[in-house]
């Protein structure tokens, strides 16, 4: 039974005791960095930060995995058994807090312990939903062959909602640490750096018995999990992924020659067959230019495009651009999805060299002609020197 703070009146010259071992501290601050990077890039920065988002997220999940193993075979204060209490004990502590007679806990206090579980669990589910989203919407990652776009899109919504929930949990976690630091008169964030805390009441605060740590086992389990994750990703690369866009090597020669004389060769999966048909029927007035072709070429290209577009491509751009603006059935930049995803980019950016306009997907999307539009392949070119006065 922890003594109340009022009873354990501050005895300043007491000895310190190691509480947070090196693993826990390294884990904590690495998780701050990796989760911070993943949240910042995912919630606030644009899609061009996708690679950093993946690195941050992957690292966070790996750290959490390792921390869970450490929760079973780590040092005394790191073990779940040491800080996860039942709901009754939690309620008791909150009552004591409300009445101002709550005790000091040298490890995690009851709500703190539950917060740790919530943080670890949320990060894990965010990571998992991210992998499902990656497989379903972008046809990459370990679940690329297993997940369709609809499931991936659902997972992505969950991924985003949980990211906001995690942000809320982090705010609460920090607030809790500040509150508890003020209440008990000790700097808890500093303890997570030094690893030591002040021992005020030996009988009440020491763990019952020092647990035997199994660092080798935890390291092995962690390495195993990481290798398994990496191997499944690599294994998937061996299969043709269903619904992935057909690579540009299979572009129809006539289509590539005629259409990319003026602009990038838009991948056929980017518009539904009816839209391609309408576009090919109105080449005489094609986005402000006469792009008419002889009847035979027009027919051949239209046929190839509609057949190629009818192939089920299950990527995010293919599925989302299929919802065209009825008033502009073949203007990709007028689709709701295009407008949402490009809302943060200024008109000035689009019109400058070497972008020239919204139609020039390939200026920023290095993989535009493949139809993939992987966010990690976005590279918005800088303003050329002659314009940047």
């Amino acid at each position, binding site marked *: 039974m922890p003594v109340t703070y009022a009873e354990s009146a501050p005895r300043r010259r007491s000895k310190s005791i190691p509480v947070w071992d090196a693993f826990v501290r390294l884990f904590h601050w690495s998780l701050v960095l990796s989760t911070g990077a993943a949240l910042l890039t995912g919630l606030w920065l644009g899609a061009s930060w996708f690679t950093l988002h993946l690195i941050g997220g992957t690292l966070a999940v790996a750290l959490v995995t390792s921390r869970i193993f450490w929760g079973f075979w780590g040092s005394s204060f790191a073990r779940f058994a040491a800080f996860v209490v039942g709901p009754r004990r939690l309620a008791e502590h909150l009552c004591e807090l409300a009445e101002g007679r709550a005790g000091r806990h040298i490890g995690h206090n009851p709500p703190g312990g539950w917060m740790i579980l919530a943080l670890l669990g949320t990060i894990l589910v965010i990571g998992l939903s991210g992998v499902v989203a990656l497989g379903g919407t972008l046809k990459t990652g370990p679940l690329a062959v297993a997940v369709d776009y609809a499931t991936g899109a659902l997972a992505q919504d969950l991924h985003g909602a949980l990211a906001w929930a995690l942000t809320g949990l982090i705010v609460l976690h920090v607030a809790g640490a500040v509150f508890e630091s003020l209440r008990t008169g000790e700097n808890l964030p500093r303890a997570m750096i030094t690893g030591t805390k002040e021992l005020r009441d030996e009988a009440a605060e020491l763990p019952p018995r020092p647990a035997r740590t199994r660092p080798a086992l935890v390291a092995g389990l962690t390495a195993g999990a990481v290798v398994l994750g990496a191997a499944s990703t690599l294994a998937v690369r061996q299969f043709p992924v269903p619904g992935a866009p057909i690579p540009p090597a299979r572009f129809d020669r006539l289509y590539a020659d005629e259409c990319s004389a003026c602009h990038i060769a838009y991948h056929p999966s980017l518009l539904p067959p009816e839209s391609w048909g309408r576009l090919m029927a109105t080449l005489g007035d094609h986005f402000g*230019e*006469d792009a008419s072709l002889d009847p035979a070429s027009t027919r051949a290209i239209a046929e190839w495009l509609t057949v190629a577009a009818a192939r089920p491509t299950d990527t995010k751009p293919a599925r989302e651009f299929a919802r065209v603006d009825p008033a502009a059935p073949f203007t990709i930049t007028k689709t709701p999805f295009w407008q949402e995803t490009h809302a943060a980019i200024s008109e000035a950016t689009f019109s400058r060299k070497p972008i020239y306009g919204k139609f020039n997907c390939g200026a920023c999307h290095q993989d535009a002609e493949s139809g993939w539009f992987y966010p990690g392949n976005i590279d918005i070119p800088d303003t050329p020197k002659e314009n940047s006065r």
Partner: protein
Amino acid sequence: MKIPSKPTILALAIILATPLAANPARDAIINALKQQAGVSSFSAEEGKALFLATHSGGKPETPSCTTCHGTNLKAGGKTRAGKPIEPMAVSVNPQRYTDPAKVEKWFRRNCNSVLGRECTPLEKGNILAYLSSL
């Protein structure tokens, strides 16, 4: 100095350019246009005026040939979508105007875009004469 004198460069250029200017495929295209226009020769000057002028009859995005081809025709141009266009001057791009279908296609499209109508055989011939003279 190793730099050849100006007359030498000029002579070399003439020697190099002569067979190119006399490309039989291009001559055939130009001769056909002469027949259609009912003239015996084309005016590079008039072709130049037409090519460099700003027009109002076509689509607002493309008021002039130079919108995409630029004013230095020995250098390449750029389409409105940022794709490079090879130089128009025959002297630097000898393959120009040797494929009748290609010549017709681009005259049809671009005259319509810039002028809002097809070009006459005389206009086409004048422009080819101008671009061959550069």
